[in-house]
């Protein structure tokens, strides 16, 4: 038995090394192959270089969203556009909210960090037709954990954004006729910075101007809960007749109440809607109450323990909703009436 290791002959050695070289080449080939893959075939998108200059279908500055990519980020997959017909494919059950509020088109674009595939965000650009509509969908969807923008962030954003708030992983704002959401895949400061950068570029890209919503100034400022304005397009408080109604919340002595107003076509129309709403309250169990405050003219209804007030001033229909006590409600109503009278004159 020869147990001593044999010396390999030269040819054997050479061939062995060649075979090992083949293995090495296989390893190299595998390594190259593993990074070259289209994860889209799994339904997961990967960055497609060169997409920044690509246009999606349609026309308008919304189609070059890829150019909004901030430094360190690049567009991820194709930009998409949705109309009323297929909106639900993208946002499912939320579609009716937008469609009822004048929705025209939705443009979406994803951006991904060049360094970290897991850090990505999606831009939702809703064309709502008018600034009011955009404000409406912006305001009614305000998240409970919304945080206001700090002034530093606002500056980074390029211009002070009137209607904007952020949450731990997203940025929401309304500008001109657009309602914009930037939703990130993670709670990350880097993502937020990138979102602010995009938000800064958008007004220029879309020729969007910060538009004033006139009705917001009609609400008395005293005791108002900041950023509590909402514009309900399709009815509020369970009554479909109260379309296009602004609401704002107030706190008086610890108790909260809501003021609402809606500009109608003319004084008659305002009266008609006011009467319908009053009747609606009575028919559903409300009890008419006499006014305590004799300075104002309004209908007061006690509705299951809360006070409702309805009145008209010129073309405005307005009132108070869900006040804890009648005095406070009437006080706020008076403030509101005075403000409206100023404008009506």
């Amino acid at each position: 038995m020869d147990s001593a290791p044999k010396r390999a002959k030269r040819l054997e050695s050479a061939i062995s090394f060649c075979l090992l070289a083949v293995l090495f080449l296989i390893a190299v080939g595998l390594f190259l192959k593993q990074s070259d893959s289209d994860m889209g075939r799994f339904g997961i998108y990967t960055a497609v270089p060169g997409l920044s200059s690509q246009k999606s279908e349609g026309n308008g500055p919304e189609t070059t969203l890829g150019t909004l990519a901030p430094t360190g980020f690049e567009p991820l997959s194709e930009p998409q556009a949705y109309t009323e017909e297929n909106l639900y494919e993208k946002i499912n059950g939320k579609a009716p909210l937008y469609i009822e509020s004048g929705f025209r088109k939705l443009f979406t674009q994803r951006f991904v960090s060049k360094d970290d595939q897991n850090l990505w965000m999606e831009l939702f650009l809703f064309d709502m037709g008018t600034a009011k509509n955009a404000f409406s969908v912006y305001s009614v969807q305000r998240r409970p954990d919304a945080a206001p923008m700090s002034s530093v962030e606002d500056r980074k954003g390029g211009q002070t954004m009137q209607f904007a708030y952020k949450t731990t992983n997203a940025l929401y704002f309304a500008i001109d006729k657009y309602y914009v959401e930037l939703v990130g895949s993670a709670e990350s400061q880097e993502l937020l910075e990138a979102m602010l950068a995009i938000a800064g570029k958008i007004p220029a890209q879309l020729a969007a101007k910060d538009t004033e919503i006139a009705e917001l100034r009609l609400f008395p400022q005293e005791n108002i809960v900041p950023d509590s304005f909402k514009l309900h397009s399709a009815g509020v408080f369970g009554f479909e007749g109260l379309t296009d109604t602004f609401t704002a919340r107030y706190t008086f002595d610890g108790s909260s109440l809501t003021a609402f107003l809606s500009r109608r076509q003319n004084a008659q129309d305002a009266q008609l809607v006011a009467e319908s709403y009053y009747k609606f309250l009575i028919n559903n169990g409300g009890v008419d109450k006499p006014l305590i405050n004799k300075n104002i003219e309004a209908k007061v209804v006690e509705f299951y323990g809360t006070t409702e007030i309805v009145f008209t001033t010129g073309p405005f229909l307005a009132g108070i909703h869900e006040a804890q006590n009648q005095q406070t409600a009437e006080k706020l109503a008076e403030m509101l009436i005075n403000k409206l009278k100023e404008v009506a004159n």
Partner: protein
Amino acid sequence: MDKQNNKKPVGRREFLRWAGKAGISIAAASTVSYLLYDATGPQPHRPADDLVTLPDFSVKQQPGRTMSIVKGSDRVKTVDKAIELLGGIERFVKPGETVAIKPNVAFASPPMLGATANPQLVAEVVRLCYGRARAKKVIVTDNPINDPASCFTLSGIGKAAEANGAKVILPKPHLFKHTTLKGGRLIKDWPVFYEPLAKADKLIGIAPVKDHHRSGASMSMKNWYGLLGGRRNIFHQDINTIIAELAMMVKPALVILDGTEVMITNGPTGGSASDLRRTNTLIASTDMVAADCCGCGLLNLRVSDLPYLAKAASAGAGTTDYESLKPKFATIS
């Protein structure tokens, strides 16, 4: 590791032989791979060239000889007369041709219950084809609902056909081919009982007039349901459309609608002699829509009661106004 000095020279010849064999094997393997190479992989849909179309068996129209209605109690005599009125069997079957007869053999049911075509009627048509028409071959076939062999036996049609020289063809899987009806919504890539018809020159349908719970009535158009294969009962979900599409798909030379004893109730299987009523009418027609429109009257139905009649007419398979065809009448006492 490689060749040593004491290698015999024949090793080189061996080497070449092996190398040759190896080379041929490699070439063979590569060729096979190349020829069978499939870059796209299997697809979910059948390729179009696998589909067939049923042949058009219809004969030339002759005005005034589209439809005949004969009254009489003896089917053998009434069918002879009915065909004679349309120009005789020779108009439909030429000498040396192969004729496929498709009677209603749907159920393993005795002839007296009227759920299937009458065997004497089938026998007479077979005789006419061989006799006056001098056909070369007559086949009698159907794809029944119940077990095929039992249906042909218990209905008496098998024996009637064979006793007169016709061949019975029972359905077998390889006799079905897939078809898509042009302009059809339902018959898409669906198996039909193709082979027996593909080999025939003419097609004649023979159907009794029956009440039908789902479609209202089962007459000459519904008879072609027996050419469908697969899980065809799914078409009951849209019964009127499928009957109309059958009328579009099948173009027979002649249909014979037997209203001698109609199944007035409890169709399509019946089950009791009391389900039948004697109406002593036999209809022969080259327009099956018209035939059915005439036949429905025997069940006390109107054309408007059977939506498939209008559907088939609007698809161009015939006319619902059978009287406009000026049918020929006769009575055999």
